[in-house]
């Protein structure tokens, strides 16, 4: 079972909450302070992407985030409910419908995650998508 699980309505205003919670749990799990900014950014990107996918498909189901503290690793999973076949039509930015920004951001979000996180896996099937990321933790977790 995950150390902390979070479900939030697929709205942009909740992504910041997910970032704050993830960073707090990561810090407690013993992720190096120097890497916390990367955790915050990566989970924010994954959640923004999920929110955009849900919004683009008109889904009212929540975005799921699980934060798991293992012995030597801290894992984050961000799940969405947009099936593989429908993902191409989704956008990350519902307000960005002016033709200038938009579709590019889907790839830019993944580019940021891939650039930040060494251990990352992006999958999607008929039930939805999942981004799995992990970071090493210090042997002695912080209080």
């Amino acid at each position: 079972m995950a150390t902390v699980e979070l479900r939030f309505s697929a709205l942009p205003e909740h992504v910041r909450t997910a970032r704050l919670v993830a960073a707090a749990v990561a810090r407690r799990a013993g992720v190096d302070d120097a890497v916390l900014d990367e955790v915050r950014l990566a989970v924010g990107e994954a959640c923004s992407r999920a929110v955009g996918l849900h919004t683009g498909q008109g889904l009212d189901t929540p975005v799921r985030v699980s934060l798991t503290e293992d012995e030597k690793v801290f894992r984050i999973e961000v799940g969405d409910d947009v099936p593989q076949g429908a993902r191409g039509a989704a956008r990350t930015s519902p307000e960005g419908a002016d033709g200038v920004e938009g579709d590019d951001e889907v790839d830019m979000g993944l580019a940021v995650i891939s650039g930040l996180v060494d251990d990352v896996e992006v999958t999607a099937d008929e039930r939805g998508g999942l981004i799995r990321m992990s970071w090493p933790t210090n042997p002695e977790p912080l209080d």
Partner: protein
Amino acid sequence: MDLSLSTRTVGDRTIVSVGGEIDVYTAPKLREQLVELVNDGSYHLVVDMEGVDFLDSTGLGVLVGGLKRVRAHEGSLRLVCNQERILKIFRITGLTKVFPIHTSVDEAVAATD
């Protein structure tokens, strides 16, 4: 922390000072500001990001959109940023090759190429 925006002009340059967090929630505010400036005829923009605590790809997308808009009017969009954690995001995405990034507003205002 929410997003704060303020603008001022120096010669033919418009300085947009941004503070707080630029993410999927706040980026539309920045987009609106940039669109409004360009619609009002400000085509040489300097976005001062020294007060930015957080920037994600949505924010990058808005800056790229702003750059496209000013370039359509043969204008420019320069960034001011000294924060390593923000600069890293531009490097990861290859956008350091797209945006002129300066260490101070004065330097950005003085730049001509």
